[in-house]
């Protein structure tokens, strides 16, 4: 069993990671960190760079959590990558960060979070930044 966290190098992503770490401590399960990009733009600020990732792994090692960091660039949406990992690693919990969006913005843009919430087969914990 494992805990999946969708990570992006933003306030929301960090909040999700923080929460996922405390959940992993509680249940003593493996933490799988997913940070994906479709890889179709030359620059994607939501794709964590090596330095950022090494900071995250350093922290996890210090806290003594069994972890796995995945950065798939396969042209899939982030939601699909998280769901696929949840199935593959038999997730007991998915932790995601939520952005503040207006209802209209949600209507137009849809969202990664929504897709994960609707399609996941395990409980999903949604965290907001600064909460």
């Amino acid at each position, binding site marked *: 069993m494992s805990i999946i966290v969708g990570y992006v190098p933003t306030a929301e992503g960090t909040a999700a990671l923080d929460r996922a770490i405390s959940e992993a401590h509680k249940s003593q399960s493996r933490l799988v960190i997913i940070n994906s*990009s*479709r*890889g*179709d*733009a*030359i*620059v*994607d*600020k939501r*794709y964590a*760079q090596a330095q950022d990732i090494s900071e995250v792994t350093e922290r996890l090692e210090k806290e003594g959590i069994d972890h796995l960091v995945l*950065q798939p*660039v*396969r*042209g899939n949406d982030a939601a699909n990558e998280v769901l696929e990992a949840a199935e593959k690693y038999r997730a007991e919990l998915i932790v995601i960060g939520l952005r503040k969006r207006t209802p209209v913005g949600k209507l137009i843009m849809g969202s990664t979070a929504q897709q994960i919430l609707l399609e996941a087969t395990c409980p999903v914990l949604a965290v907001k930044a600064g909460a």
Partner: protein
Amino acid sequence: MDILSSLMGGFATALTPMNLLYALIGVILGTAVGVLPGIGPAMTVALLLPVTYVLEPTSAFIMFAGIYYGGMYGGSTTSILLNTPGESSSVVTAIEGNKMAKAGRAAQALATAAIGSFVAGTIGTTLLVVVTPIVVEFAVSLGSPSYFAIMMLALLAVTAVLGASRLRGFASLGLGLAIGLVGIDSVTGQRRLTFGQPLLADGLDIVVVAVAIFAVGEALWVAAHLRRTPLQIIPVGRPWMGKQDWKRSWKPWLRGTAFGFPFGALPAGGAEIPTFLSYVTEKRLSKHPEEFGKGAIEGVAGPEAANNAAAAGTLTPMLALGLPTNATAAVMLAAFTQFGIQPGPFLFANEGPLVWALIASLFIGNTLLLLVNLPLAPVWAKLLRLPRPYLYAGILFFATLGAYSVNLQAFDLMILLVLGGLGFLMRRYGLPVLPLILGLILGPRVEGQLRKTLQLSAGDVSGLWSEPIAVIVYVIIALILVWPLLAKVLRRVRPRTAAPAYAGAPAASDSVAARDSASARGTSTTAGGLSGAGTAADQEPPGTGSRHAADTTPANHGQEKS
């Protein structure tokens, strides 16, 4: 005085609100395509050719000039912030520029690049104004034999000197010449390479070919490599420079300009060689050589000035002789033909107002670029977050629309697809695109001059070298062609003195003599690589197996030592 008044007339034309607007559109588009890697000014001008049919030629060329200069500006932004050159001429900028940005000096790097480009562009354009009429005066006196020789020089020089592989260069040139041959022979009326297809009798439209090779080929190539790990862009505020930066930048700007302009004006110059030369010079002359490799501002200022000056220089042979030396100039030359304007030495006489408006717009475009680039650099960097499928879908759409709109026949779309596939394969196998485009555009004109020469001399081949200029040019061509052979011979002569040491020494021994000669060979190999004739070093003179073994072992030792 005559030049000055013509130039003022040009400014009067270029400064009308409409033309100013086109200049602004041009510089904005140019900067955008310069920022995006893979999309260059040549592709943009090619895509816009069909659109500009409805415009006045003057407005169209003002826009093209803006795109051309803008591309040179935009490339530096990507080089500095992303370490991925947006244009081939900003490769060198990335070396120091990205280091500066990583050290938190991105704003200064962008500023010195933009202001240096402005300074070099302005000086370069001034030189263009001064030099071009002189070249024209000289060019008007040339006869067909000389003209033929000069065009041959341009074709061969671009093919043989630029690019890594001569074989690939000549293959590409051959393709271009062959495509240029399609259609009815203008002298005898015979059909050539038409395969019985009446639609091919008029020849292939240059617009369709250029759009296919540049836009469709590139789009397919990118589509084949769409997934890549995203890069991180270094955040930056508004570019600015401190007093110290100005002090360290102004000399490299001027030196870069001095390198750039003449190289741009030469048939085989291009913008890459002068940027490299400028970088090396700045490194040698710098008072802070220890900063090179860690983000020296001179290493950004010099090459950026050089590539803009080269851009101005390139326009000299294009306007004075009708000889393009880079892809964008080639496509612009095609645009001249599309508008029914005959490029060549008589361009200034026949189309004076247009040419001077074009030159005046270069000054204006340069100033606009500085105004657009300095405050907006962070905005341009945002362009890199654009998902490329959308971008290339748009390019393909415009390419198809443009190709169809030229003659309104579906047959052109077939040609677009076929040649787009060719463009893709050329990228796949590393064939440079420039020789093809030059061959396509210059080929028919070269043939015309050759035919004229032979008609004048009543079919006598000696008519080809009946003018002194032609003879001189042929000597230069011969030197260019023979140079790699010569370099090979020279290189073979040098190690030959040490060769007995190879033969005498047992294969496994590493005697001092063998090691020395190996290191000498090693240095000569690097020198060959820099001069672009590195292949000669790889092709060892035929020798025995044991000699080869002896050759490689000490060479490895030498490398470990150094």
